[in-house]
């Protein structure tokens, strides 16, 4: 292809748009107390928070895949009354202020919640204020990203491949795992990356539903938040760590989840 030339107006607008994202980041970098960086990063709380953040966000992504892919499939493929409503419901965590999301989670899965009280009395399971609770809060907030992306992938895939598989005798589950999933690979991947990124930055729902216990439920965003009150410059450093990690993953994978380089 001939190299694309950029219309001037487009170039100017795009550059301003990019500046809008770069400047705040620059601000963080410039104002960070780089002298204290090592100290801030090696503090035991920081290391623990980082570990927890990674573990929880990855678990949330896995759970979102397990439940979100079937849900996206149903949205894309099965017609039923209330589908539009249900579909919109699953995107609500994107709209809900996360703190409210956390409260809603407590109302449902807390020890006094609709389901939580039954879980507690029957199995002795309580979810809030545990690492499982962190994973749950992150899944709640991040899963819509996966669902939306995968549903779009399912809708744009050529369904005739599934039909071809069926004419070859493949049962529905085989079609799903051996044809559908591989064919929507890029969307699946994109959805998972977005979901993971959102989970990594989750704050409001986590602190509300899971609390803020170092080593158990204190993820990086919570650690950053607590530092803001006292040593806010150290908090910039932690934010940058969070940024660099996700930046690394996004840069490394983005050409894959966008489909081409």
């Amino acid at each position, binding site marked *: 292809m001939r190299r694309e030339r950029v219309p001037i107006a487009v170039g100017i607008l795009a550059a301003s748009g990019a500046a809008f994202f770069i400047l705040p980041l620059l601000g963080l970098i410039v104002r960070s107390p780089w002298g204290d960086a090592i100290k801030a990063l090696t503090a035991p709380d920081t290391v623990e928070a980082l570990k927890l953040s990674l573990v929880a966000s990855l678990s949330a992504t896995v759970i979102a895949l397990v439940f979100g892919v079937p849900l996206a499939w149903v949205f894309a493929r099965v017609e039923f009354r209330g589908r539009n409503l249900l579909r919109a419901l699953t995107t609500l965590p994107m709209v809900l202020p996360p703190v409210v999301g956390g409260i809603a989670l407590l109302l449902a899965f807390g020890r006094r919640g609709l389901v939580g009280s039954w879980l507690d009395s029957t199995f002795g399971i309580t979810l809030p204020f545990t690492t499982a609770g962190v994973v749950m809060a992150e899944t709640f907030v991040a899963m819509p990203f996966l669902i939306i992306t995968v549903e779009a992938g399912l809708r744009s895939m050529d369904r*005739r*491949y599934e*039909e*071809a598989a*069926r*004419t*070859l*005798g493949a049962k529905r589950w*085989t079609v799903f795992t051996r*044809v559908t999933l591989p064919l929507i690979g890029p969307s699946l991947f994109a959805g998972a990356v977005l979901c993971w990124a959102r989970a990594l930055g989750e704050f409001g729902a986590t602190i509300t539903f899971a609390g803020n216990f170092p080593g158990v439920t204190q993820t990086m965003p919570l650690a950053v938040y607590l530092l803001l009150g006292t040593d806010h410059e150290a908090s910039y450093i932690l934010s940058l760590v969070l940024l660099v990690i996700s930046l690394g993953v996004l840069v490394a994978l983005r050409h894959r989840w966008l489909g081409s380089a």
Partner: protein
Amino acid sequence: MSLEANVRLTLGALDLDIELSVDEAEVVALLGPNGAGKTTLLRAVAGLVPLTSGYVKLDGRVLEDAASGKYVPTERRSIGVVFQDYLLFPHLSVLANVAFGMRSRGMPSHEAAEKAAQWLDRVGLSAYVQDKPDALSGGQRQRVALARALAPDPRLLLLDEPLAALDVTTRAEVRRDLKRHLTTFPGLRLVVTHDPLEAAMLADRLVVMENGRLVQTGTPAEVTERPRSQYVADLVGVNLLRGQADHGSVRISDDSVIAAAAAESGDVFAVIHPRAVALHLRRPEGSPRNAWPGRVSGVEMLGGRVRVRVEGDVPLVAEVTPAAISDMQVAEGGEVWVSFKSTDVGVYPA
């Protein structure tokens, strides 16, 4: 032992209502223009699109019956389908594509791989087993699609325009192979095409459909000689007229009657081969009983001959030699006379 289908359904603008049977002894070709519903009919037979009414029976077993609600899902029908654009799984190797059907039906992986390799050998693609489909040429893909459909030993083989995606040169070669595989395939065979040459070469019987309905069926020779619709006549390249026959004449319209040496009477088709139509600059003298003036509306070279369309009382196409054209200085818009002998008119009941 046969396929018997009576398919009635509506899909978008298409209103399909057709009866179809395929015997073991014959290769049947389904012929028709774009949008006639050929693919839809195939999909209905495969169970991929539901019938509104009617049934599909394979070897006497009911696969689907709208009246009773019985429905055997696609994956439990013993069919092999070659899709128009093949639909090879892009994420699987050629070998895995061919093995897919056998694996799906529960064959152990190494056995399926072995059988798939044999099939690929049979279609001359042993060298490509590990390649992904998109590394293959069109002709090679077609062969993989065929091997994939045949490998699980289906009872019924459905092919949707198996050669349409190939270019002219590859097509001739692949057509020969396909012919051979169709001949040796032990089950029932149904091929969709919209190329009459292809249909005639591959099939023993043609089923012509238009707008979701059957318009004609018969051997290639029967269909070629006695077209029953303008579509078939165009395909075959002959002039087709319709009218009332009466003692050696056929009334085409209020104004025009042609003479035909035939004993038919009543509603008939009359077919005149373009080669039998002569062109003249003046009113012809002598034996031709059919002659009238017209205006040339098109001149076309076609394989060493020239086809001239003449508009007149009865529009006709004449096929003449290039020499005749240059002698007569025929050009578009020019006035000419057309004539043909009454013995050159084929007449048969409509």
